[in-house]
């Protein structure tokens, strides 16, 4: 294989993203785990209505950065975050910001499907209930149905909403987790390798879903699969050893990378 252009399974569409505004602006972000400097000086603009992919080898800091965006690193006692991350122009690390409120706006889907040990209905209703988003049962039913529909799960589970969410298959569980995340009507949806525990068919369903979600949310997805990044994203950021090496249009990153390290990674020479 001579160059990245010949990766035939990557189908790159024309992307129109230039008219989107920045939703999240990160400047000079550093993350330390104890004495380990895990993320070095990252500047990124996440655009509204766009799927942004973070790619890079294991341990490069992409998940760490993702977890900075909704302050999930707060739950890790040894983690320390320096720098500025603005959501709609407001610093999310400001003292006045409640991380709990923030996470309602910046939802997250995890690597392994983690449905709560509750019914399918209660899994989706969890967020709306704790944030008081609905006024009555009928409204809640509506939210649950529309989220399950958006997550392309409604037809499979509509007859067993009271069955436990843990009884679904892996792919269904992950779509349930996505439905659960969008039920709190977040503005940004963070996905940490959402397909790594899924088979190819379930992966294809989730990817299709991500593309549809773009119309309502900014989606940030961490992935190990470069094909997946190429298929679903409009913008791609390449991380390596804690540095943000390159950030740009997905088509440009995969066909015409500026940094030699990016080219080496996407052609399979490092990683």
């Amino acid at each position, binding site marked *: 294989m001579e160059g990245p252009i010949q990766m035939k399974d990557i189908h790159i569409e024309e992307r129109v993203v230039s008219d989107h505004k920045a939703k999240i602006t990160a400047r000079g972000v550093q993350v330390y785990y104890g004495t380990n400097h895990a993320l070095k000086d990252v500047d990124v603009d996440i655009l509204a209505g766009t799927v942004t992919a973070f790619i890079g080898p294991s341990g490069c800091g992409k998940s760490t950065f993702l977890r900075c965006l909704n302050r999930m690193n707060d739950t890790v006692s040894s983690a320390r975050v320096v720098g500025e991350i603005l959501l709609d122009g407001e610093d999310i690390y400001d003292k006045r910001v409640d991380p*709990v409120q923030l996470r309602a706006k910046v939802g997250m889907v995890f690597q392994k499907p983690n449905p*709560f040990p509750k019914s399918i209905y209660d899994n989706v209703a969890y967020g709306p209930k704790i*944030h008081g988003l609905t006024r009555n049962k009928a409204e809640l039913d509506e939210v649950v149905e529309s989220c399950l529909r958006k997550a392309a799960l409604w037809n499979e589970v509509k007859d067993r909403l009271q069955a436990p969410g843990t009884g679904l298959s892996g792919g269904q569980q992950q779509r349930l987790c996505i439905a659960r*995340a969008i039920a709190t009507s977040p503005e940004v949806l963070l996905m940490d390798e959402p397909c790594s525990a899924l088979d190819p068919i379930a992966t294809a369903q989730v990817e299709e879903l991500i593309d549809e979600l773009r119309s309502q949310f900014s989606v940030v997805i961490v992935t190990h699969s470069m094909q997946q990044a190429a298929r679903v994203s409009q913008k791609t950021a390449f991380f390596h050893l804690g540095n943000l090496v390159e950030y740009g249009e997905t088509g440009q990153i995969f066909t015409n990378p500026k940094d030699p390290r990016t080219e080496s990674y996407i052609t399979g020479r490092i990683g």
Partner: protein
Amino acid sequence: MTVLVLVVATLVIAGVGFFLGRSRALSGVSGNVRDLHSLPGYYGWHVALMAALPAFGVLLVWLIVQPIVIERNIGSLLPAETVADATAFKLAVADIRRVAGGLDAAVLAGALTEASAAELTSGGTDVRAVLAGVGVALGSDVTNDTLLSAQMYRSMTATGALARMIAVLAVALAGLGYALSVTRAEFRARNRVEIVMMGVLITASSIAILTTVGIIWSMLSESLNFFRQYPATEFFFGLTWSPNFRGGSDLGFIPLLWGTLYISLIAMIVAVPLGLFTAIYLAEYAGPKVRAWVKPLIEVIAGIPTVVFGLFALVTVGPFLRDYFAQPFGFGNSGASVMTAGLVIGILNIPFISSLADDIINSVPQSLRDGSYGLGATKSETVKQVILPAALPGIVGAVLLAASRAIGETMIVTMGAGASAKLSLNPFDAMTTMTVKIVGQLTGDTDFNSPETLVAFALGITLFVITLGLNVFALYIVRKYREEYE
């Protein structure tokens, strides 16, 4: 040869067998271990086990069967009417054993020779005096029948011991010979030894089960004995408990059941919330430093003997409750009360619940917490809505285990709640529980066959059924609400 010497001899044969088997296996392949099916040690173990196990089996069976056979033979020497009456026969045999043992001791001490002991007659010698001289006190003079029987008992025992030695050693040597004869390179010694290991494991696990069966059986038989002397309906539905050792007692079990349940209820009302909150704090809120200190400190409580808790109830909690609650509010002036015992048992059970629940909460996967935090839930929402439901089956199990403990608690009740069986709603009244009464009825200095004593067994089996029911219910709850996390 005594049993101990016989066991040692068998072990020596087995030990020799180990080295013989090992070296035979090795010499069969001229020292090349890789040609053997198993490691050389396994061939050694196989020979040793084949020598020892069947021999011990024979020994065990012999030890059980020989006394039965001898007893039956002695029966032929005793008068027919003694043999016909089971109690008299038992007494006669016990007498014979005592005299035979005395003769053994006399021979051992040199007061009699082996020959003179065998030819002793009750007419010629004062057997009682001779035996008293070597420290065996007999209740009455020895009759001729008894002496003859005792002599026969001794001679049969001696013959039996000789035959036993020959049989055991023969079986050991035969096992050794057989095992050596099959020891060849391709012999699967390892598999054979592992089968024996499996047998050991099965035996170990059956002992607990057999013990339970034995407990139930002995309780049942004594309880049936009780119900033959005392009507079951009066026991189960009687509202008065007043045992009278001269007979004519009221042995109604309801007051005891009520006391037991009342005290346990108070104990659980204290222990469940406190234990659960402790566990939630330790598992979800406490930092590693606090946890490292607090958890062992709480668990210290579990290590305090319950009798010490009983003292605490007796001298501190009881008087405190009486002086500051019972007397001012007119609930009576008893130092011993249901409240005292319940509170102290509750405190005793806090570490039990907190420790179990803490482990259960910690075993809820981190991914569920992340999922909840990721949706913007606070810590307390996460605990209430995700962690506790996920941990619920385990927590229910822990609570029911603690309840079983509270129901079975004896010492604290004796010292804290008193010993008077009463049916009352007042928590500051002295009451008592089934366990306390079991101890009380059994330790009295009375005829074992009276209903006043045997009622202890009926109480015991009822208590057993109650706690068994609780445990079965706990298992049912845990099964029904068990959630697969991942």
